[in-house]
């Protein structure tokens, strides 16, 4: 059964992606039957709590799932080619050139013993075969582009001489150096203060506007996803529970988990009233010991008997907004 949203001219199509982590006791499915679609210019948000499989899904696209994780099934179609079966050399031309990635913690992604210039020009020289002199010039432009003041002076600095926000700007500069068509952003602002988060998200938005670059944004922050994404997929225990236009999912969530998640977010509107939040009861799911049927069923306020015996499949009742819960609407 086709679970994807209506297909126009997709840049990237993920079909039935399943990622397993093997340990002594068996195989855990960190991502299970993931179907996603992303078009040119689009921003897709992957929203969910720790361990829901959002980062693993993102990493699968570039073939960098950490050991002992492995893609077990599925296809990842990038402009018609399946990235999972590409030869390594070809994949290296896609990775970091056509598709780039930025991570949560810029401190651990930058090499502490090389200057900013070394790290930016490396990409330019390797991926774009640029000459050293041109690469230097381009690096200055890139730093300027991501809003770093006096870029020529900053090139000689080492990562530890920069603040967290500046380091994330450097990461973005490296990622956009090759003018990728798709940027994968894994919690890019989680480690940053709120005003710096605001600056970085604004920077990403203006870069997308300029270049038409698509983006997949992984975040646990509902507000960040609501404010920056066109479409959103809500994940729980390795499954997509709800998938649709961001405005529609945020305004009228269909799946009980999404509803619970949105209700659990404290807001500024009720400041000082101390009204209890509507929390989701119970504990986060344990991938090694998932309940039968719907993985959310033990915590679901609308649970019924049939829930132990249903597949997690997005319905097709509303073409732009699917939910994996057949009962609640």
């Amino acid at each position, binding site marked *: 059964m086709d679970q994807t949203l209506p297909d126009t001219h997709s840049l990237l199509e993920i079909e039935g992606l399943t990622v397993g982590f093997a340990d002594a006791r068996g195989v855990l499915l960190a991502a299970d039957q993931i179907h996603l679609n992303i078009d040119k210019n689009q921003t897709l948000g992957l929203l969910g*709590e720790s361990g829901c499989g959002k980062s693993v899904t993102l990493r699968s696209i570039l073939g960098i799932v950490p050991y002992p994780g492995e893609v077990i099934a599925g296809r990842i179609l990038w402009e018609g080619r399946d990235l999972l079966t590409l030869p390594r050399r070809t994949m290296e031309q896609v990775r970091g050139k056509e598709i780039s990635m930025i991570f949560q913690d810029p401190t651990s992604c930058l090499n502490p013993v090389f200057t900013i210039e070394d790290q930016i020009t490396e990409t330019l020289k390797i991926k774009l075969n640029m000459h050293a002199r041109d690469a230097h010039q381009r690096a200055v432009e890139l730093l300027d582009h991501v809003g770093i003041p006096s870029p020529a002076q900053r090139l000689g600095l080492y990562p530890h001489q920069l603040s967290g926000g500046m380091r994330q700007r450097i990461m973005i500069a490296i990622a956009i150096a090759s003018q990728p068509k798709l940027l994968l952003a894994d919690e890019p602002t989680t480690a940053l203060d709120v005003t710096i988060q605001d600056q970085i998200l604004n920077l990403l938005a203006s870069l997308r506007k300029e270049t038409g670059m698509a983006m997949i944004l992984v975040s646990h922050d509902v507000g960040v996803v609501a404010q920056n994404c066109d479409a959103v997929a809500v994940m729980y225990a390795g499954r997509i529970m709800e998938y649709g236009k961001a405005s529609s999912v945020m305004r009228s969530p269909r799946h009980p988990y999404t509803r619970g998640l949105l209700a659990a977010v404290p807001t500024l509107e*009720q400041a000082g009233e101390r009204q209890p939040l509507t929390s989701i009861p119970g*504990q986060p799911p344990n991938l090694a010991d998932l309940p039968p049927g719907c993985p959310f069923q033990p915590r679901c306020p609308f649970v019924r008997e049939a829930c132990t015996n249903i597949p997690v499949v997005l319905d097709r009742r509303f073409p732009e907004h699917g939910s994996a819960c057949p009962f609640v609407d």
Partner: protein
Amino acid sequence: MAIDPDHPVLKVDNIYKYYGGKSTLIDRIQRKPKPRLVALDGISLTLSRNEVLGLVGESGSGKTTTARCIVRLEVPDRGSITFGDRDVLAADTETLRHIRRDMQMIYQDPYSSLNPRMTVRSAISEPALIHGLVEKEGAEDLVRELLERVGLPYTVANLRPRALSGGQRQRVAIARALALKPSVIIADEAVSALDVSIQAQILNLFGELIRDLRLGMIFIAHQLSVIAQLSDRVAIMYLGRIVESGPTADVFTRPRHPYTGALLEAHPHLSGEKKQAPALKGEIPSPYAIPKGCRFNIRCRFAEEKCFEIDPPPTEVSPGHYAWCHVLPDLHQS
């Protein structure tokens, strides 16, 4: 059960904390003064029983240093801290022990704040046994009662932290703090490491505890919405100073300091409205070189000439609501 602001249980009066800056004789001969980091630059606050004071600010604003000074894990360079009728900074070892029993801290990371080799039972009962609040025989009842209080089944008493999830661990840390029947709890980013659905559970638990046990609480967080959820009063910190303080609803709907306004604007809203420009340019200045005049001046879009010369005094903009700003723009939030 009302809050009595005239008889605060905790009073922090104008504390300063510096790191480094002590130059040796050789430094002085070479005329190379050691740089001095200003962590707290004159912090004053009060807390009443049954009241939650939210401290909010970005990294490096001094929230945690303030908390650590209050329980004397750090000794401020100047200023005074009074808890009840006791002087915290002048207290001898025995008095300090009592003060710390009455003021319990809960930390951000329940993975590192619990001893991995202790069972939940001993983590909760040990402080109470050491302080002589219960005898060995009574300890089991205490553990049972506290676990129920924080919403955990009694069966977890035999487990070690590794068997618990982050939310469950934070509940254990709360139970351990409550074991000493404190009158004040200092929660330093106590829900920041938790997932949203679990964070809501813990925030609700804090709400119940404050109501039922008449606790005073200093609640530190960098996330405005979390502060908004629990706090009666809020103090916004920036670079070692409080820049605005007052009743939470008042400060969050009618902020008068440009920094508070920027924080509120930068906070991502669920409505998903896209914004045109970032709320605030630049980054927090180095605490080694605090700007002259108002410390927010270089990032402030309202800054006038005198903001670069004179440190702004507090202005009471509405009852109990103070802002340290020369301009006091009206930043009413819709």
